[in-house]
């Protein structure tokens, strides 16, 4: 087990270097000069452009820029933004906690509501509960997330005035509840469907029949035997989803004006802030890698037949 974890952690190093390098190169081949872009429509000042490029190290050859960047990264220095010359670390440490809160709330929502719905539907397959859940999840999956977001905003915010249409303070958990609901909606549908299928399938398996024959209480059968064995696909999904929720909330964050990672990533791309993009992606890659490691370890907990060496 310990060796397995160590091996996985070591594997992260090449993945980490590979992704940063790839992103770094990709951002650099995008057309458009971020320094020139500071002047917008108006003609730039060549002396000032040269000065800014020199300050940010953008006048060096590409490989040297990358080495510089990596060197800084290992010392915890993400560099400075091109526009405004602010430390990128500040931008990242401001955005991540916001996205983290949003993601954790959405994720908990998916987990609790999704699994509950899935279990009920799976146990009562073909009955009204099951049909309702199936139709509901189908609906959620087929409606694009921005539609859900805008509808929530329109009704809860503008029509009924339950909430302010946008988040006034991104650090306030209470205000993030509605965006988190929207964000978790699609995931919830998938979790419910995965759980349902898995439960329905396992319900007719031998070990459940045995448990029922033994006369075990129904509650115990469902939670200890049925659910535990049915959770593996769900856990896989939930594990990778945490990363998606953190970095992929661009649309939801945009609608509700949440200043999280998605938003930062989007504006940085529009402004060609290469260093910021690489910085965010670096952290996201780490989140993904750790989450998938955790998922793999959880398999063994859920199903003792799985062992790691």
């Amino acid at each position, binding site marked *: 087990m310990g060796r397995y974890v160590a091996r996985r952690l070591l594997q992260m190093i090449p993945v980490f270097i590979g992704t940063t390098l790839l992103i770094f190169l990709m951002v650099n081949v995008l057309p458009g000069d971020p320094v020139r872009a*500071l002047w917008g*429509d108006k*003609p730039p000042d060549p*002396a000032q452009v040269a000065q800014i490029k020199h*300050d940010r190290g953008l006048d060096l050859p590409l490989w040297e820029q990358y080495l510089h960047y990596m060197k800084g990264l290992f010392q915890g220095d993400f560099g400075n933004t091109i526009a405004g010359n602010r430390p990128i670390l500040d931008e990242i440490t401001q955005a991540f906690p916001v996205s983290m809160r949003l993601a954790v709330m959405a994720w908990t929502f998916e987990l609790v509501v999704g699994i509950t719905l899935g279990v009920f539907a799976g146990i009562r397959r073909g009955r009204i509960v099951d049909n309702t859940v199936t139709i509901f999840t189908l609906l959620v999956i087929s409606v694009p997330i921005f539609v859900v977001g805008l509808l929530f905003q329109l009704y809860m915010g503008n029509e009924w005035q339950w909430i302010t249409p946008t988040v006034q303070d991104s650090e306030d958990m209470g205000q993030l509840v509605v965006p988190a609901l929207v964000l978790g909606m699609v995931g919830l549908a998938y979790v419910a469907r995965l759980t349902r299928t898995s439960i329905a399938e396992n319900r007719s398996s031998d070990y459940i029949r045995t448990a029922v024959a033994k006369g075990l209480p129904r509650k115990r059968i469902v939670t200890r035997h049925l659910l535990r064995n049915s959770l593996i696909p769900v856990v896989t999904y939930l594990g990778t989803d945490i990363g998606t929720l953190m970095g992929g909330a661009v649309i939801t964050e945009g609608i509700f004006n949440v200043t999280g990672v998605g938003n930062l990533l989007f504006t940085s791309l529009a402004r060609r802030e290469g260093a910021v993009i690489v910085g965010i992606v670096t952290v996201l890659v780490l989140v993904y890698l750790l989450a998938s490691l955790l998922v793999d370890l959880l398999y063994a907990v859920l199903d003792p037949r799985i062992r790691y060496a």
Partner: protein
Amino acid sequence: MRGAKSAKWVAIAGVVALTATACGGGDDKKSSGKVDPKGIVSYANGEPQNALQPSNTMEAYGSVVIDALFTGLVHYDKQGNITYENAESVTPDKANKVWTVKLKPGWKFHNGEPVTAKSYVDAWNWAADPANGQQNSSWYRDIVGYDKVHPEKGKAKAKAMSGLKVVDENTFTITLNSGIPYYAYKLVYKPFFPLPSAALKDPKKYGEAPVGNGPYKFKSWQHKKSIQVTAWSGYKGKDKPKNGGINFKAYTTPNAAYQDLRSDNVDTMPLIPDSELANYKNDFGDRAITEDFSALNTINPAFYTKQWKDIDVKVIQGLSMAIDRETIAKTTFYGTRKAASGWVARGVKGYKADACGEYCKFDPKKAKQFVKDGGGVPGNKISIQYNADQPHKGWVTAVCNDIQKNLGVKCVGDPVTDFQADTEIRDQKKVKSIYRSGWVLDYPFNGNFLGDLYGTGVDGNKGGFSDKKFDELVKKADNAKTIEESADLYNQAEAELKNSFPGIPLWYNTTNSAYSNNVKNVEFDQAGDPILSEVEVFEK
């Protein structure tokens, strides 16, 4: 071109709409109708790109904050005439070369330091030095000695521009390389604001917490959340705030701000998002605002291409006449733009309607004849380059339809991913056929739309246009004795453009906005900036 203000490129991005309207008081459902002089106005803004230094601020988000915190020497009124603010007078010598600035005495910065001639001269010298990285520094380029402080390449060779001289506490002179009759207009722009001496010693600190001499005093800046300023009791200017302060709220998209505006969570915003242009008048009723905004949209042939190099001007005139501006303004833009009739936008000094005359009027028959007489469009095909990250596709398609239908010339849009990529192609002179262009006033003087854009070889001339006659007229206008004379001469220069057609004028922009139930008296000036000191807040 001589300077480059800029900015509201963020704003022009969004874009715009139509006629001036009066905006009556709000229909105050919730409020008592009484005005609270201490009430705070909230304004939908975004995170400024740079630290809050006047000489380093170009884009709209930073500009509006700087304008609240600082007051410059001069400003302008709705007709584009100069008004004196911190300056008592700004007077040129006979050749318009040496300008004497006299300050109103007794003005102070928010920290108590008196505003003197030195506050201006030192700030400008500091900002001109490339080592201090101030984006607007090229605005000083008309001043003698600028090239020493700010060489094309390398470090500064001098610390101060020799053209700036402090005469006494409240007087200084600006000596220019050559006479410019309308130089006072340039002094409106932010790099010509004063700075307190401490700001030059610790620019970083003051960039985060600026100290100015304007109607509002800086209170706090929570990055990406809000910037708060409060009305300053020691203010000596005419535009004393009628409210207690402003909360500049940071929004990441105009759509989010719009939703907050609808439910009174923010009091006003600079630009209604395009997706709401069709609805906003319904949503806000008499709280909707439409005001003239001095910006012009054109499509310009790239004169460096084979297609347009030796073109007969009749072809371009023909293309221009084939476009039904009125109809497109009404349909594609929901009436939020006005058909253009010249190369100078409305609301600036020297604006004259119909400079383009018949060539900007829709006349498909004549258009066809003109193109035929001019020898036709080479290749019988044009493309219009635009940036796809802003909503240009609709009108480009409409313009192309007109050209195709009325002239039989194949016309297609040439989308480029985003604004950055689009500018790069234009800067490098790699446009294939025609490109879309927009210009927001730097200062409200017609010369800014003419000499700075279409003079041979000037920076703003991206299409490689050149017309000797026009250049001569510009030179004459620049050597005029007075502002009025210069504006008249620029009118002549504009009239000459009819015969060489550097670009096809399409529409004038307007500012489209609205305000909440909490406030009244919200107006925007011709540069699209809100006049925040005039806004009144209702008692809650």
